């Protein structure tokens, strides 16, 4: 899964006149709002951003609504219902560039764990009155339905990367969103590798950097919330990890926020599926 192209067209550099303010929208599907709210974390620069871009659709923070067209549409959340399938197709048609944000939109999110189970059983286990729940058999990433021009990964996305993306958008440069492993960030920061020094399983080597290596810095293994990096060799990592733990434990490690991403999903399948083949009750600690 190579990172899609993020360059925006029509920007000819700083001397070709004032660029028009791009029309930006932010919408959400099945998700928690955490990613879009990251925009509000850019407190210091929020006013400048609001001045340089035309935020025409952002239900979380403004009352302005727009049905499009958008120069750039940020999409949060996975696609989980038939209605959402239609809506994302409509939005794609009115968006010049469509950028998915967060683990849900880019990989299906934590809710994609249910993709391994019988949807009726899941519904029965989770909701008291399952008849009212209209959902697809699977929660899937936006890219499974429409073409995606760019991605901001993470659960939630990083404010720094969102800022970089917006600055790149208005200045016309290529956003610097590294596709390399979390390990590089650990080593640059001087964080001691938790896998090698303590035997803690860590998805850092197969996970895309961007979080700043937060988990290893606090002595925990990476959970993979930024999803697979380029050339994610999950096969080798899983083989190494299986030397001193059961197959089920190895599969469980990959079954997190980005479980449904292609390389993680394949590894989970190869190691006997996600935790717990049945979902008897809500209390289980699966995922």
């Amino acid at each position: 899964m190579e990172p899609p192209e993020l360059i925006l067209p029509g920007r000819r550099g700083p001397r070709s006149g004032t660029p028009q303010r791009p029309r930006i929208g932010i919408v959400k599907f099945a998700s928690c709002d955490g990613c879009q709210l990251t925009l509000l974390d850019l407190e210091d620069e929020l006013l400048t951003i609001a001045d340089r871009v035309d935020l025409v659709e952002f239900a979380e923070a403004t009352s302005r609504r727009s049905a499009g067209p958008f120069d750039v549409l940020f999409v949060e959340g996975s696609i989980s219902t038939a209605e959402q399938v239609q809506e994302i197709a409509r939005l794609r048609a009115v968006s010049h560039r469509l950028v998915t944000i967060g683990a849900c939109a880019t990989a299906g999110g934590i809710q994609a764990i249910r993709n391994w189970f019988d949807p009726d059983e899941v519904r029965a286990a989770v909701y008291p009155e399952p008849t009212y729940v209209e959902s697809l058999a699977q929660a899937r990433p936006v890219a499974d339905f429409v073409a995606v021009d760019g991605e901001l990964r993470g659960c939630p996305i990083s404010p720094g990367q969102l800022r970089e993306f917006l600055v790149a958008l208005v200045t016309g440069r290529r956003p610097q969103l590294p596709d390399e492993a979390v390990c590089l960030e650990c080593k640059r920061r001087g964080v001691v590798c938790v896998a090698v020094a303590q035997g803690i399983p860590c998805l850092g080597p197969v996970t895309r950097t961007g979080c700043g290596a937060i988990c290893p810095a606090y002595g925990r293994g990476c959970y993979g919330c930024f999803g697979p990096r380029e050339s994610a060799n999950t096969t080798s990592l899983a083989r190494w990890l299986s030397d001193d733990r059961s197959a089920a434990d190895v599969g469980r490690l990959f079954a997190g926020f980005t479980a449904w991403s292609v390389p993680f999903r394949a590894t989970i399948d190869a190691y006997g599926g996600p935790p717990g083949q049945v979902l008897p009750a809500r209390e289980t600690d699966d995922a």
Partner: protein
Amino acid sequence: MPAAYFLPRNELDRLFGALVADGRRIVGPTIADGAVVYDELNSSAELPYGRTADTAPGSYRLRTTGDRRAFDYGVALTSWKRFTHPSLIPLTRAHRDADRIVVESVLEEPPKLAFVGVRACELAALGIQERAMRAGPAGDPDHAARRDAALIVAVECAMATSTCFCTSMASGPEVDHGADLVLSELDDGFVVRVESDAGVPVVASLGLRAAAPDEVERATAQVAAVREVIGDPVAANGLAARLRTALDHPRWSEVAERCLACANCTLVCPTCFCTSVGVASDLDGADASTERSWDSCFSLGFGRVAGDANFRPKVRDRYRQWLTHKFSTWWDQFGSSGCVGCGRCIAWCPVGIDVREELAAIAPVSAPTGPIPWPPSPPEGRAPAALATITPARHVIATVRSVVPETADSVTLRLATNDEAVLDARPGQFVMVELPAFATPPISISRIRPGGLDLTIRSAGPATAALTGLVAGAQVALRGPLGRGWPIDAAIGRDVVIVAGGIGLAPLRPVIEAILGERPRFGAIRLYLGARTPRDRLFVAEMNALAGRADVEVAEIVDRAGPEWLGQVGIVTQLFDQAGWDGSRATAFVCGPERMMQATAVTLAERGVNPTAIWLTLERNMACGVGTCGHCQLGPFFVCRDGPVFSVAELGTAFGREGL
């Protein structure tokens, strides 16, 4: 002055005090999160007393020994490069308002440090990295300043971990040169040797007694025992040559199935020096800055060039770059091995890949040595092109005089500057072109003229799009001229063949102009020009004028014709594969996409042109342009400073080899 002094164990803090009195902060080993790391120390109490480390491929565990020794842990996870070549440093600050730009270097004054606990292998590594960062007159000023500001207190090894192999790499375990002070830890104290002028006052201020002969003997015996324990695990003799001939070994693909391309090995390696440059700016791109951070040849971005092409897409390619660079091409570049046998890359590889094992499999002692892929380098390493006036921090501001539209996606910027170094550029050289807030692309000089130079740029991505969008009066910052130009003198008295594909004509135009300026000194001149479509032809008026001359032959061809095109259609080699001229009398200059240059080199050789007389200019990802970022490597070559112009003979089979 005695050969050695004795410092009682409980007086180590007096040494620390003397170093502090010398105006230094102390960096040394201490324990953090389950490993020994090098960090700033406030007192000797923070040393890892009574702890050692057990290492194995992919594993590192601290263990309590119960004794009171401070330096029995092997090497720390972090290497000293964290202090001589920090993982992140600010490089430049830039400002743009209206048409003016300012770019200034923001290198910080390095702290005065004392490195306490440097091993023999690490001393060797500091020297190796210093040679790499200082190669040529364009060495990295930040690295030089930091290294010069450090005083080195080495400590002889009294134990080895299972991953140590300094003995094979001739870098230890005995400390023989490069330190200011050398300590040998005995149970009751330290034998102290003074090995530089800078060390003399430090030790003098302590008023130590001379070490007794038995103390010196115990110290010597201790490190001799370490040599025995390690043995000679890597067959280093002839290794560089064996590895060089094993570029197609099936094991590269096999190790790539295990390798995560996570870059840990390169970032913990004390000699790896590769970096990338990041750009930050405010929302208007008016205030921008660049910073440099550690990167690695395991990153996909290292091989990337415009148009989503990548020279090292596969993990196999990246692992091969790592192993061959450390143990083979480093010799070509810097006259030594790039490995000192510290074993960090083995222990800290998350899946336990062991370079000793891979070397034994890929380059076994019994390996039949095949033909070497590129001509051998001089023993002292490759001498970089003269870059006397270039430092990575020196920017020249040039003003756009006019913008000449060339094709739908390319323009020529006519730049004015009175910087003598820039005006002294030779045909084939290039400049790094910085526009605040954008990446800094390398661009060839397409004309050298009094008071300025031309750059012909195709919009291939955001930075080049911004450059092609500039208007008269705008400014850019240049670093250069860089690289080795075309050897025009080598063509004197000979026929000249020039083959260009697309934008590749840009770096060739100064050659054409130089040769025509001294027309009588050359034989026949033949220009073969290819373009994607008739609309993509460059310098059309000039080329038409040349075609009108009796003493120059010009032939053009396009990949795809439009209705208005009456000329030839096809690939550029078709213009001369049937030609009647005698190639043995010709010198050829070639530039275009790499595939086109490969085909051209083959066809020229078939026409009798000697590979030593076929010159071409290569494109690679470049961040520094002066041989310190590592991006542009191709086998033993740094394309930026050994090239970008090379002869086919110099490149050998490095040219066109997949994944190199």
